[in-house]
């Protein structure tokens, strides 16, 4: 190991100076000479046959360059948007999605035509003048009804609405329930939510006629992935497509798939011979960017009267929307595989049914299946505790695997790498002053005040993924991650990675790793990502994988560089390779620290004559890292709320988060990730819900006016602490932290709300726990 001054240090982000001064470079900040603006004409209906599209009037609008419909695109586009089909083990009906509707629209907001015009406003004006005549078809909105025999169909030519129906058996579930003293049942709804990155999606495409080359700037988390599918769709060789994801204003999972507009902008540039830009408005973003969650979980829990957990049955119904999301089924799979949470069960049985409806697709949103898992199992243990009149902390502690039981295999066969669950819970309880708080709670109850204490002890899965584990559930994707580490003759270092940073601060954390691993100054390390022209093929950033897979790839490349540099240093020092030690950025002969060469000196030598016999010049290495296992962060969050019984308003009085994400590269960035994650979890728990009209499938929460993401007044001060249990899965002992806050938070908040309202006999509250919902529940309970 080299110097370790950077790993673990609070380094201020190198990304920030340009971002705080307005010199970021998001896609809409760029122009191309001769560029036309693209506006998308979207379906005003959730389900209808397209009778005609009349562009006569729109074509006369000022500045119009061209108007294209499916018929035009069919000449330059083929196939459909990808779906990780093999994930859907028992695949039923997965309709193909062409990027634009041809004869039938199946969700409100589906593209039906595009307009190109010289100016931004002209494109929007002309799009208004495209006349589309629809013949209405029955609309499928309620996904539980949609799975029944004889339901109306979301696609008129489909056999039914069932996309998949898969079982996840783990242990003898009947035996577990036979042993039970108590069983509890509940229906837990994970409402649809908008991911709502502050930057909506934006695409700029420049197809060079006669050269058959395409450059596409797009606000995405996965530039390489987008390139592959544009290559298939447009029939342009992958080598002749360059995808650039520059500064990206947040993603949260909603930018990790190829989208129709990427195909349409690229194809429009090809058809028109002009560069084309499309900027998604917020209202459009709510219609056209994938939604998160959208599940029902019916759970049944079996336990002994001493609080020992025995069995858990989970039936998941997933509201896919009109087209199965690219990773749509992955969320259900993760929700079930993680449903055991951090508890020892004798048996867990899961079933998931994917259901098509006339709505936008659901796809990953921060956590993608793990928040759903944590929410259901954390609700489940609280339900048991309430039933048995046990303290929920005691019940949890009783069912944790002990530290000595790791690696711990959960009831569905997932192997948790390391953990000490009791330790995070102990710490969180100390921080919140748990015993005092319980006393205060009972005192306040006597005064008619309703304080609630909610626990959420979660475990999650990061670092996707080991190819052996993921390939059969990811459509045969290996999900390895790549890096190139290149030391220049003057000793500075360029690192190119296949991940993408859109707020996570990779430029900083990755440079910290490289500075330590190579023993070079932090400022001499430059990180490149997001441009397929100068980065190796990579799977991008999602699933809290960038550090545990991408970071380890970089570290491994650095080790390869050190290995080669050591041979060169030995040659320069006229010593045997084995006699040279690498320490603090210097190569020295064992026992003679003064006989040394720095990495910079070796880098120069690597580019000059006189290298060891048979050695190639240069000092660089490439790694495609395939991790041996996932990583398993965990933690304990405690939320304290007071609910006003007269208004139903929830006041978060305290929020404690104790997280363990293994070793830390930059504590400031880790805390920031927790903050943001918790805020999104609180948002789902208390405020957010996507609503479609049951009869028409119109989006009722269609603007930011109608949909409440938390503002400054809604998020309390968050008190953070951590424990550190290194991951044995990788050499840096890191796990990942991008989604942990969201995974933990919704359960902590809802458990607190239920705890507050338990004197009313309330056992469960659905999200969002809005004042309206709670007021009605309290009123009903008081009858």
């Amino acid at each position, binding site marked *: 190991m080299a110097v370790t001054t950077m790993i673990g240090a609070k380094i201020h982000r190198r990304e920030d100076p340009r971002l705080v001064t307005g010199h970021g470079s998001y896609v809409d900040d760029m122009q191309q000479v001769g560029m036309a603006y693209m506006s998308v004409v979207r379906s005003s209906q959730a389900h209808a046959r397209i009778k005609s599209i009349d562009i006569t009037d729109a074509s006369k609008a000022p500045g119009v360059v061209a108007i294209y419909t499916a018929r035009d695109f069919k000449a330059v586009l083929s196939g459909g948007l990808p779906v990780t089909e093999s994930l859907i083990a028992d695949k039923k009906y997965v309709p193909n999605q062409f990027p634009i509707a041809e004869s039938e629209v199946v969700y409100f907001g589906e593209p039906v035509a595009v307009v190109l015009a010289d100016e931004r406003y002209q494109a929007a004006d002309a799009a208004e003048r495209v006349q589309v005549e629809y013949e209405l078809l029955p609309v499928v909105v309620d996904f539980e009804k949609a799975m029944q025999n004889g339901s109306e169909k979301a696609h008129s030519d489909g056999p039914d609405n069932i996309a998949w129906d898969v079982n996840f058996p783990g242990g003898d579930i009947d035996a577990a329930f036979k042993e039970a003293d108590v069983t509890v049942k509940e229906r837990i709804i994970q409402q649809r939510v908008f991911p709502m990155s502050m930057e909506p999606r934006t695409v700029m495409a420049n197809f060079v006629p006669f050269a058959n080359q395409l450059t596409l700037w797009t606000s995405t988390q996965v530039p390489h992935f987008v390139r592959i599918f544009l290559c298939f769709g447009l029939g342009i060789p992958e080598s002749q497509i360059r995808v650039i994801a520059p*500064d990206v204003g947040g993603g949260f999972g909603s930018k990790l798939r190829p989208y129709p507009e990427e195909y349409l902008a690229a194809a429009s540039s090809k058809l028109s011979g002009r560069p084309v830009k499309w900027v998604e408005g917020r209202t459009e973003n709510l219609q056209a960017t994938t939604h998160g969650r959208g599940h029902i979980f019916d759970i049944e829990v079996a336990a002994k009267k001493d609080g020992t957990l025995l069995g858990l049955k989970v039936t998941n119904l997933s509201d896919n929307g009109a087209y199965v999301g690219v990773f749509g089924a992955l969320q259900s799979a993760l929700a079930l595989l993680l449903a055991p949470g951090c508890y020892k069960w004798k048996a867990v049985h899961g079933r998931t049914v994917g259901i098509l409806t006339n709505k936008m697709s659901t796809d990953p949103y921060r956590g993608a299946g793990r928040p759903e898992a944590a929410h259901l199992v954390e609700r489940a243990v609280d339900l048991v505790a309430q039933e048995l009149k046990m303290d929920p902390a005691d019940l949890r502690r009783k069912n944790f695997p002990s530290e000595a039981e790791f690696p711990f295999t959960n009831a569905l066969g997932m192997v948790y790498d390391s953990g000490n669950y009791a330790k995070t819970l102990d710490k969180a309880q100390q921080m919140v002053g748990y015993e005092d708080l319980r006393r205060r709670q009972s005192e306040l109850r006597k005064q008619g005040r309703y304080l609630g204490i909610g626990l959420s002890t979660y475990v999650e899965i990061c670092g996707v993924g080991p190819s052996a584990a993921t390939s059969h559930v990811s459509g045969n994707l290996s999900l390895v991650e790549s890096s190139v580490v290149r030391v220049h003759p003057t000793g500075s270092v360029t690192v190119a990675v296949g991940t993408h940073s859109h707020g996570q601060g990779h430029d900083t954390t990755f440079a910290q790793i490289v500075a330590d691993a190579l023993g070079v100054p932090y400022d001499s390390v430059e990180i490149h990502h997001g441009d397929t022209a100068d980065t190796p093929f990579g799977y991008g950033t999602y699933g809290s994988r960038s550090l545990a897979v991408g970071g380890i790839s970089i570290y491994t490349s650095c080790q390869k560089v050190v290995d080669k540099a050591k041979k060169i240093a030995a040659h320069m020092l006229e010593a045997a390779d084995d006699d040279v030690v690498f320490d603090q950025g210097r190569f020295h002969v064992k026992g003679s620290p003064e006989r040394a060469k720095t990495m910079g000196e070796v880098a120069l030598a690597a580019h000059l004559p006189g290298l060891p016999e048979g050695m190639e010049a240069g000092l660089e290495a490439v790694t495609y890292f395939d991790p041996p296992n996932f990583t398993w962060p965990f933690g304990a969050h405690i939320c304290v709320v007071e609910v006003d019984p007269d208004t139903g308003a929830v006041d978060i009085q305290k929020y404690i988060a104790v997280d363990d994400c293994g070793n830390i590269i930059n504590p400031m960035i880790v805390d920031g990730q927790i903050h943001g994650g918790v805020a999104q979890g609180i948002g789902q728990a208390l405020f957010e819900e996507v609503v479609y009209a049951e009869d028409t499938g119109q989006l009722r929460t269609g603007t930011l006016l109608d949909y409440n993401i938390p503002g400054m007044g809604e998020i309390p001060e968050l008190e953070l602490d951590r424990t550190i249990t290194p991951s044995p899965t990788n050499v840096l002992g890191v796990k990942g932290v991008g989604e942990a806050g969201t995974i933990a938070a919704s359960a902590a908040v809802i458990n607190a709300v239920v705890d507050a309202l338990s004197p009313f006999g309330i056992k469960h509250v659905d999200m969002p726990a809005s004042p309206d919902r709670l007021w009605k529940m309290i009123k009903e309970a008081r009858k």
Partner: protein
Amino acid sequence: MKHKVATTVNGHRHEHEVEPRLLLVHYLRDVVGLTGTHIGCDTSQCGACTILVDGKAVKSCTMFAVQAEGRNLTTIEGMAKDGQLHPLQQAFWDEHGLQCGYCTPGFIMAAAYLLSQNPNPTDDEIRKGLEGNLCRCTGYVNIIKSVKSAAAAMGGAPARAGEKSVAGR
């Protein structure tokens, strides 16, 4: 029919002919070429496009460019002076007050106005003062810290005990 509009943006005078319906934010971004002011919604909720108009925080999507005739506009690009970050910019950097950075210019401009009216705001006053701006990354925790830290640096509040940290570039 285009209209003449003359504005002063970050101390520089600009004259253009624009459509009367052109939003001020599009004027700044597409006509003047200052892209630091961002657009995060189309219903004036998000505050990403906040600038100062004659020193007052305004969501620049709520004004037409022609309404800015003769006004003094300050955008995020006008905050750093002589190669030195404005204390708010420095504070957002120091306190990790941003992640993806998209909402940041709007927050900094709204905070600049807040501090001009209230040089030493409490947490609650910051929460109220910046309630018109949305951020999806930070959970606001470090934005509040950033504004307090800037207030201290600008002389409005006693300096906070600094955390030990390593300065990066």
